[in-house]
C-alpha cells in the first residue's frame, strides 16, 4: 500500500485501536488479560548481535528501487510466566513476512522469544507503510523507495561473477584502477548521499567527490577507484557503496619479477685452487621482500666436488632481499665465499625460487693451467732410494710426463734430465677422483752407489697446458 500522505488513516485502522473499541469494558477480566500479555511481551529488533526495543513505529529508511531490506524482529517474553503468541501479521504493500523461526500460535516461555523477519521490497519510488501486529502490539512500519542510480564500469574493468567489478590484475608496487559512472536514470532529481569504497585499503576512491550531491535527470558523474596492491597480499576485496547499494570490488596483485641481479666477484680473473666471494645487487630496488636460492654447478673435464660454497650447503645457498632494497643477502651475508676446485671447466651460478626479470645465470670459466705445485721435498733417508714427494693439482687431468734433473752436492748437473712417464699412474688415480685433481705423488729412484753424493733434484712436470717446475729440492 502506498501510504504517502495517508498515515493517519492507517493508524486509525490499527488492531489495537480496534481492540479498544471492541472491549469497551464488559468485564474486568477481559480488560486485564490482553494488557497483562502485552506488557509481558516485548518487541525488539535484532541485528545479529544486539537487540533494540521497537516503539510504535519502525522505519526501514530509504531503499533503492528494486532492492529489498530485511529486518529481524523478536517477540520476547519478559515476564515470569509463559505467553501464547497467537497473532503475527503484517499488512501493507511492500512488506512481507520472510521467515518465522517457530510456529504461530505457540507458547513462549519466560525469557524466550520468537524471531521473525520482515522484508521490504522497494518498488516504485514512493513512501510505504504497513502494520505489524504481534498479539496486541502494533507497530507502524515505514520505508521509502528511492530511484536507484545506474552504475556503470568502463573497460578494461569487467563485471564480476558476483554482480560486482573485477579489477584487472596490477603489479605490486604500481597502481591500477577502474572508471565508474553513476547516472540518474529517473525523471526526478536523484540524491547521492553515499558514494564510497569500504574494505581493503588497496582500493581508494572516489577522489575529489563530496557527498551528498544531486544528479539531475539523466545526469551522470564519473569517478575512478584506484587499486594499489601491496606486498604480502595477492587477493583483495572491497565494496563500492552508492546510496543503499553495495557493489563488490575484487582485485589481484601480481608479484613483480625480481629485477635481474648483477652477480659480481671479488676479482675479475678466477682460476683453479682459489677462494673467492660472490655478491649480488639489484639494478633497481625490489618491489617486495623476496627470497630464493643461489646455486653453483660445475661442468668440466671431470666432476669436482671441491667446487663449492664454503658455508652452509655445499652447492646451494639461500638469498633474500628486503623490499625497496638493492642489496641481496646470501646466506645472511653480503657475500658468499666459494672455492674453485682443481678442475678446468666452468662454474655456473643460477638463481631460482623466485621469478626474475631476465636470465641471471653467470658462468665463470676456469681455464686449463700447468700443474700447480703446493709443496715438494726430496729425501735420501732410505738406503738405496731417492724419494721425491710432490703435492699439487693438475686441472687438465693430463699429467704424467715429467723429467728429473739431479745435481751433485757441488751443484753440478749430473748428466741430462731423466725423463719419466707416469701417465698411466695419474690416469688410474684420476679415474677414481671425485673431489678434484689434487694429488700427492711419491717417486722413488733406486740408487746404486753413494746416494749422499746427490745433493739436489729439480722436477719438471708437464700437462696439456704447459710445464711446471718444483724448483731445486735438497735431499735431506
Amino acid at each position: 500500500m502506498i501510504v504517502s500522505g495517508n498515515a493517519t488513516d492507517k493508524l486509525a485502522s490499527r488492531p489495537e485501536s480496534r481492540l479498544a473499541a471492541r472491549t469497551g469494558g464488559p468485564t474486568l477480566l477481559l480488560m486485564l488479560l490482553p494488557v497483562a500479555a502485552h506488557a509481558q511481551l516485548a518487541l525488539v529488533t535484532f541485528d545479529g548481535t544486539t537487540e533494540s526495543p521497537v516503539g510504535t513505529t519502525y522505519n526501514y529508511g530509504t531503499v533503492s528501487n528494486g532492492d529489498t531490506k530485511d529486518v529481524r524482529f523478536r517477540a520476547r517474553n519478559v515476564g515470569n510466566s509463559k505467553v501464547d503468541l497467537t497473532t503475527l501479521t503484517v499488512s501493507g504493500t511492500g512488506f512481507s513476512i520472510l521467515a518465522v523461526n517457530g510456529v504461530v500460535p505457540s507458547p513462549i516461555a519466560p525469557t524466550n522469544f520468537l524471531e521473525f523477519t520482515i522484508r521490504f521490497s522497494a518498488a516504485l519510488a514512493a513512501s510505504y507503510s504497513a502494520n505489524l501486529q504481534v498479539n496486541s502490539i502494533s507497530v507502524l512500519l515505514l520505508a521509502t523507495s528511492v530511484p536507484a542510480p545506474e552504475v556503470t564500469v568502463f573497460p578494461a574493468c569487467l563485471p564480476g561473477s558476483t554482480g560486482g567489478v573485477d579489477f584487472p590484475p596490477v603489479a605490486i608496487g604500481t597502481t591500477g584502477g577502474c572508471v565508474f559512472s553513476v547516472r540518474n536514470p529517473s525523471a526526478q532529481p536523484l540524491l547521492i548521499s553515499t558514494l564510497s569504497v569500504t574494505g581493503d585499503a588497496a582500493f581508494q576512491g572516489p577522489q575529489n567527490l563530496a557527498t551528498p550531491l544531486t544528479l539531475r535527470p539523466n545526469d551522470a558523474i564519473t569517478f575512478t577507484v584506484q587499486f594499489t596492491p601491496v606486498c604480502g597480499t595477492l587477493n583483495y576485496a572491497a565494496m563500492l557503496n552508492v546510496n543503499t547499494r553495495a557493489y563488490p570490488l575484487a582485485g589481484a596483485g601480481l608479484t613483480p619479477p625480481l629485477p635481474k641481479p648483477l652477480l659480481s666477484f671479488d676479482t675479475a680473473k678466477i682460476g683453479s685452487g682459489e677462494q673467492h666471494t660472490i655478491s649480488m645487487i639489484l639494478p633497481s630496488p625490489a618491489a617486495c621482500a623476496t627470497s630464493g636460492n643461489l646455486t653453483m654447478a660445475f661442468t668440466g673435464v671431470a666432476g669436482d666436488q671441491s667446487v663449492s660454497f664454503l658455508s652452509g650447503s655445499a652447492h646451494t645457498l639461500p638469498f633474500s632481499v628486503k623490499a625497496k632494497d638493492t642489496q641481496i643477502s646470501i646466506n645472511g651475508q653480503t657475500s658468499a665465499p666459494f672455492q674453485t676446485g682443481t678442475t678446468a671447466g666452468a662454474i655456473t651460478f643460477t638463481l631460482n625460487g623466485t621469478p626474475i626479470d631476465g636470465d641471471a645465470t653467470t658462468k665463470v670459466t676456469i681455464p686449463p693451467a700447468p700443474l700447480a705445485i703446493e709443496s715438494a721435498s726430496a729425501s735420501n733417508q732410505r738406503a738405496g732410494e731417492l724419494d721425491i714427494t710432490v703435492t699439487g693439482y693438475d686441472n687438465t687431468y693430463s699429467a704424467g710426463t715429467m723429467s728429473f734433473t739431479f745435481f751433485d752436492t757441488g751443484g753440478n748437473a749430473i748428466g741430462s734430465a731423466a725423463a719419466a712417464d707416469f701417465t698411466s699412474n695419474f690416469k688410474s688415480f684420476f679415474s677414481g677422483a671425485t673431489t678434484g685433481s689434487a694429488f700427492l705423488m711419491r717417486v722413488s729412484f733406486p740408487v746404486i752407489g753413494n746416494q749422499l753424493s746427490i745433493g739436489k733434484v729439480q722436477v719438471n712436470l708437464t700437462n696439456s697446458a704447459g710445464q711446471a717446475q718444483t724448483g731445486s729440492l735438497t735431499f735431506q
Partner: protein
Amino acid sequence: MKILFFLSACAWAQIEQPQLGIMLDRAGVARPVWGVSASVTLGTAVATEVVSMACSRRWCIASTAAGLVSWGNGRQWRSEAPAGTAVFAFSGDSAYVYSSGQLAKWREGTRELVGVDVSGEILSMRVVDGALEFAVRRDDGTWIVRDGNAIVAALPEATGPVMLLDRAVLFATDDAVILRRTDASEMRFPAAGAESFVVMGDGLVQIRARDANYALRIEAGREKLFLLPEIQ
C-alpha cells in the same frame, strides 16, 4: 751418467689423495681435510665431542667429553681423564698435556704427571731443545716463559689466543692473526675474531673465529690463509 740412466728406467711412482690435516668443526667433530690449500673437502668424522685437539705430522691427540684420546698410524689410545679444555705440546712420540691445572706427559695412552711452576693462564706450550715453554696470560700481559716463570719473550699485542710453534709464535689481536718468527719477521693475516687455534698437522694451523674457520699454512715462504668448509 750410467747411474742416472739406470735410475730413470727404474723409477716408480705412487699417487694418492693429499691430506692437509685434521680440523675441528663447530660441533666438536674432528675431520680430515683433503686436498690442497684453498681447495679442500672434508672427510668423515674421526673423533667426536672434541673440546681441544692438536695434530703433529704423524698423530693427533684430543681432549673429549670421554677423556683423552690419541690416534695415528692406525692405532688409537684412550684415557678417561682428564677431560675439558686442554693445551698440548708434541715431543716426538709423546705429548705434554696441560688441563685442569695439571701437566702430564702422554705416551700411548699412559699419563705421567709432571711438576711445573708457571703462574698465569697457560694458553699454549711447546718443547724447545727438550725444555717446555709456555705462553701465559697474566694481569700484566701475555708472556712466553719457562718452568719457574723465567721470561723468554713478551707478546704485548696478543689479546686473543696464542699458539707456540716451532721457531714461531702465532697470536691474535682484535682484527688480525700475526705470525711472528724467531727472526722477528712478522706476517699479518686478516682473520678477525679468532677465538682459538688448533694445530691441524704439519705446517697448518686452524683458526677458529666467530664467523668462520680458517686454515693458515705457516711453512716459511708458502704462508697462505684460506677458509675451511663448514658442514651444516
